[in-house]
């Protein structure tokens, strides 16, 4: 058993943790990072092996050793989820993600107020726990800018300081300057998507991605091999935290990374402060780190789990939980999807960066009038391979054949052989409003490889607002497929109510300590030397992917800690 002392301990070295490690190390703070997975290098990634990385999930948590259970409601029995869609190594999910890098819309930060102003309070479902964020887009814009430039994001501005730019997303919030890198090349799927979308009056554009379109900061530009989502980039063109911020953290001389370590408790004393963490080493040893500042930055489940596991006589409901809000308001993206197949042309969608290649934002957020539609908020609509990954196994497994074509046999083989190179999927990635009864807690029946209770999700997205929105969007996707000139357009069946990608919530931020867990900086209302940074703090979702916003929040918190908290520890808001 070892005991170490440090200024800052950070649990989880992913999208948020890596940024905090680098920035706090630069500010002269001694940082120890705990990471339960290994630290791999670019040379460790053999991209191009779909079976290994996509089917066998080589870069994701082992769902058997590290189970997360799900039940649709509090009366049902929870069963382990088959796929865990987050990272399991230094760099976290940014190692294997599709690298889609959005700034949220201005109204994503205030969707409660926006909805009430435009449609009245009755437009918000009665059981919905929607609150505004405790910060505005303008507050976060400088940190979005830093994230884009320090990490390396490719795209085209659609709104430069209020001036609309042709070819970018006209619905984006104003940005201070152009992206650091031009957009990635559009493949055939992007070309036909854009043409079809324009016919319908939409505004398509190349999705912004944390993938280098050309050499940047000593890393090479993308070679369009087509293996991004679920893969580590074998040339380091993906701007993962592994190849961007972790080397910066190393260079500060103030950073130590402990891999293969599992944090199981945040320690606190009777004064109401946290004093450090306990963790198991890769050799099974039981260790302690004493720290002035504890930052939790794992994937969202482990924030709730750690806070609940760390209860004491002083904090009987878990740490940072005087509000009773820990574990509540779990949200995830819902995927509405259609397939479009062409008898008269190839699409070859397996080429190029493969997740959500080309997009339109016309049906997202409050970018369109929802009057009379029976739902609020919207979706990012994109062209993409069947399962955001371009290989043939993914297409076969994730593309349901059109009506009348069986799932096996000669007709199925003929379907695959004719359409694999001639299909595209069109997806609407749509948000889930927050509901207090969508929760994370500790599973009383299932334990993980360390003997800790598994995180248990209680969640079912199939509520009236979400179902109405998904049906509306499926109709839009079918129109798009036809406008693209597809010979065949058909829907993918909607799944059971299980959470999809991009889980958010559980330790939400807010303006009121009675209804939220942390303030705008991720600082616990109850315990000022405890921070929680990541998408678990989101009070509401966007139709957009969450990662760039996680990163911007990490920059903002690092800035507040380095420039304010370090000199005068105490509440920042």
């Amino acid at each position, binding site marked *: 058993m070892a005991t170490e002392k440090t200024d800052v301990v950070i649990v989880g070295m992913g999208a948020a943790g890596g940024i905090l490690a680098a920035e706090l190390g630069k500010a002269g703070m001694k940082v120890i990072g705990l990471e339960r997975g290994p630290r791999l290098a670019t040379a*460790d990634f*053999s*991209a*191009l*092996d779909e*079976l*290994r990385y996509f*089917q*066998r*999930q*080589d870069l994701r948590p*082992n*769902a*058997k050793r590290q189970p997360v259970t799900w039940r649709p409601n509090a009366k049902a029995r929870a069963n382990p989820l*088959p*796929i865990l*869609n987050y990272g399991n190594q230094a760099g976290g999910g940014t190692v*294997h*993600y*599709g*690298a889609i890098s959005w700034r949220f819309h201005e109204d994503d930060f205030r969707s409660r107020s926006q909805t009430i102003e435009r449609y009245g309070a009755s437009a918000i479902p009665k059981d919905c726990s929607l609150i505004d964020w405790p910060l505005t887009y303008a507050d976060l814009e400088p940190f979005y800018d830093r994230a884009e430039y320090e990490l390396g994001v490719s795209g085209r501005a659609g709104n430069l300081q209020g001036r609309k730019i042709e070819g970018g997303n006209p619905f984006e919030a104003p940005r201070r300057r152009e992206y650091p890198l031009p957009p990635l090349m559009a493949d*055939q799927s992007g070309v036909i998507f854009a043409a079809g979308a324009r016919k319908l009056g939409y505004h398509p554009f190349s999705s912004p991605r944390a993938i280098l379109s050309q050499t940047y900061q000593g890393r090479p530009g993308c*070679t369009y*091999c087509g*293996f991004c*989502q*679920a893969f580590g980039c074998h040339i380091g063109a993906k701007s993962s935290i592994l190849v961007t911020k972790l080397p910066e953290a190393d260079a500060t001389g103030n950073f130590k990374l402990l891999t293969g370590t599992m944090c199981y408790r945040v320690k606190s004393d009777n004064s109401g402060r946290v004093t450090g963490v306990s963790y198991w080493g890769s050799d099974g040893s039981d260790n302690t780190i004493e720290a002035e500042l504890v930052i939790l930055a794992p994937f969202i489940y482990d924030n709730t789990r750690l806070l609940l596991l760390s209860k004491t006589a002083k904090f009987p409901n878990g740490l940072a939980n005087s509000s009773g809000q820990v574990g509540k308001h779990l949200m995830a993206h819902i*995927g509405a999807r259609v397939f479009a197949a062409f008898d008269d*042309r*190839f699409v*070859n969608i*397996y*080429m190029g960066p493969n*997740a959500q290649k080309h997009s339109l934002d016309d049906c997202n957020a409050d970018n369109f009038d929802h009057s009379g539609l029976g739902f609020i908020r919207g979706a990012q609509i994109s062209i993409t391979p069947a*399962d*955001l*990954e371009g290989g*043939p*196994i*993914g297409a*076969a*497994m994730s593309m349901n054949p059109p009506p009348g074509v069986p*799932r*096996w*046999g*000669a007709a*199925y*083989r003929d379907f*695959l*052989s004719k359409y*694999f*190179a001639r299909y595209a999927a069109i*997806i609407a*990635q749509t948000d889930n409003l927050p509901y207090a009864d969508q929760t994370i807690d500790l599973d009383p029946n299932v334990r993980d490889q360390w003997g800790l209770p598994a995180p248990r999700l209680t969640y079912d997205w199939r509520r009236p607002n979400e179902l109405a929105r998904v049906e509306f969007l499926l109709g839009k996707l079918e129109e798009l497929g036809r406008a693209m000139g597809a010979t065949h357009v058909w829907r*993918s069946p909607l*799944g*059971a109510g*299980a959470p999809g*990608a*991009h889980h958010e919530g559980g330790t939400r931020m807010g303006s009121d300590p009675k209804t939220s867990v942390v303030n705008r900086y991720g600082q616990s209302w109850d315990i000022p030397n405890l921070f929680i940074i990541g998408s678990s703090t989101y009070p509401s979702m966007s139709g957009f992917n969450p990662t760039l916003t996680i990163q911007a929040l990490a920059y903002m918190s690092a800035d507040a800690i380095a420039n304010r908290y370090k000199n005068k520890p105490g509440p920042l808001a």
Partner: protein
Amino acid sequence: MANKTDDERVTLSRRELLKRVGIVGVAAASVPAQALVPAAAMAPPVETSLSPQAVALPREALETFTAVEAATVEAMVARLIPTDENGPGAREARAAHYIDRALSGALASSLDAYRSGLSALDSYARASKGAPFAQLSTEEQDAVLTDMEHNVATGFAPNASTFFNLVRTHTIQGTFSDPYYGGNANFVGWDLIGYPGVRLAVTANDQRLDPHLIPTHKSAYDYTMFSKTRPARASLEGLEGLEGREGRARHGD
């Protein structure tokens, strides 16, 4: 075939075999012949429209299955992605070999499901059609598989459709995965669907000109930069939870 004697069954099976040879020579070449007829009695492939390299694939040594199990799996994958005058299927891709090998490695946790599932399959085939699955006609095999898919076939644990989906998933993997894993032999799966294969770079021209790309016919591990990162065959485990996820959780990021 329900009331035939063993000898008649062998004869009929062989006739069935020869019939298939007439249509697609390769199907006979890779069928587990010793389970049905002495190897010496095998007819050579005749009149095939398939490419020469797809024919005359030797049958690999078994790593996990018994000969009887292998025969059943061979027959099953050959119906899931069949071979006919329109092209090759899972048999030529050696999907059964992929499964046989993986069950001693990355898919070891599915081995019990195969052992009990294949046994249940033969029991159900005998009860409903009068012979083990591998010895049924293709029409009878399809009827049995349809019963499994629709979960009306009995005797499976936990149920027939779970086993059906497991084998379907592994058949797809064995037909379309990197040949490194023992399936997709001679890139037959990738050629079948027009996937030109893995490549380190795709040019602007490739992406712009609506091309039908020339296949690379290379495994990822044929590229020297990846030769050091070959996966350990048994390095992964506990993956059966990933099966049958159509329409369920997405991978999306």
